[in-house]
């Protein structure tokens, strides 16, 4: 019988079907691509809810935290370069830039909370900054996202005592120093994380600098 040639043939030939047709190669790749795509589309749909929910909760928790538990919250949207109570028709609420105004039980304004970011030591530092637009006094800040050096730079998020150094300080503008200070607009940076600490200060100055004029303009307009 001669049909046994490849049965005991050279073991160097990998498989009998070495040299598959182009169609089969294309089909295999297309099949695995489609299979992967299908599985991913399903997983994406299943996880989209929790991911969005978490992002929303994170913002809400952050706003409440930086304003010190306000009784009521107002949301203003940035339309063009002006603040407005309503969004133009068809705009996506999730995509819009927002500012949150917190009021205490008597209806007095406690402060505003805005999201701002700047490059830090090894990542972009995103903060929710709470401040009083009239005096520029800070009510607090919360790190929304950062991937600074674990154990050093990430203390801006994980060390609660760092945040408390900012409460009540005036951002006109805010400055950083390496030693302890009682100055009204200077805060002490974290040892070993000067750049990350300075990034926080920069974000706060940026937030107050860009949002105070807008808020003042809005207050003037709505006050008329």
């Amino acid at each position, binding site marked *: 019988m001669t049909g046994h040639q490849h049965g*005991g043939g050279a073991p160097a030939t990998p498989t009998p079907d070495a040299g598959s047709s182009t169609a089969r190669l294309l089909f*295999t790749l297309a099949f*695995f691509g489609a299979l992967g795509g299908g599985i*991913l589309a399903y997983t994406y749909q299943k996880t989209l809810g929790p991911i969005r929910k978490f992002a929303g909760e994170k913002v809400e928790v952050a706003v409440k935290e930086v304003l010190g538990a306000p009784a009521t919250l107002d949301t203003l949207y940035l339309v063009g370069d002006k603040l407005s109570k309503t969004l133009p028709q068809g705009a996506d609420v999730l995509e819009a830039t927002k500012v949150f105004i917190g009021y205490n039980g008597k209806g007095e304004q406690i402060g505003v909370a805005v999201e701002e970011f700047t490059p830090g030591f090894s990542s972009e530092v995103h903060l929710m900054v709470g401040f009083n637009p009239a005096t520029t006094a800070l009510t607090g800040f919360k790190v929304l996202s950062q991937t600074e050096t674990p154990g050093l730079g990430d203390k801006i998020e994980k060390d609660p005592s760092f945040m408390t150094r900012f409460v009540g300080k005036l951002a006109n503008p805010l400055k950083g120093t390496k030693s302890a200070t009682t100055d009204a607009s200077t805060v002490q940076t974290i040892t070993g994380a000067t750049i990350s600490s300075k990034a926080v200060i920069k974000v706060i100055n940026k937030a107050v600098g860009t949002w105070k004029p807008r808020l003042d303009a809005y207050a003037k307009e709505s006050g008329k």
Partner: protein
Amino acid sequence: MTAIPVETLEQAPEPIVPGAPPPQPLAMDFWRGIADDNPVMIQMLGLCPTMAISNQVSNGLGMGAATLFVLVFSSLMISSLRKVIPNEVRLATYILVICTFVTIADLIMQAYSPLLSRTLGPFVPLIVVNCIILGRAEAFAGKVGPMRALADAFGQGFGFTLALLIMCTIREVIGSGTFLGFHLFGPHYEPQLFFIMPPGGFLSMGLMFLTMGWWGERKKAKLAGASK
């Protein structure tokens, strides 16, 4: 034809794929990944994530779990479909399969463990290019049956996690004075920040390899001594 060709008798019912690992009990396939052929300590693969995320034990656990998930599912899928994957496009196919499972792992982490997902950052998507996974697919899962591929994937996955945990423990305990976030030494301990920085990573890894090398040499010497 009178006699059955000798080769047919010698070969197993299923023709052995050239380059396939020799048959072994499943327990050995599993155990190899943890000790004798540990992906990090012996094969020296996956060193990038090992270095990058090993400054906290919680990171090590998360990274180990994500890698184990990807290894197990991609090995299982590749092994089950090994006969329909043409040789010429096997690597591209493996990468497609691996990408799929890495993205699933990333999405699941973002949805149900957002904090861990944030600290691990880009290193979860980067599991795609972790040599351990493609290495196992090419050297093992693509050539053996699903049961062996699974045993091997679990072994390699746990082996990787073990190596990560050793590194993480050294670095977190010395560098932050904590273990899984719990303070170990009281307020007077000054954390050796050096260990959570990259140089500390290189040093810890070197120390780990040194210990493993010394241990391996000692084992070899004992075996040599016993056989005399």
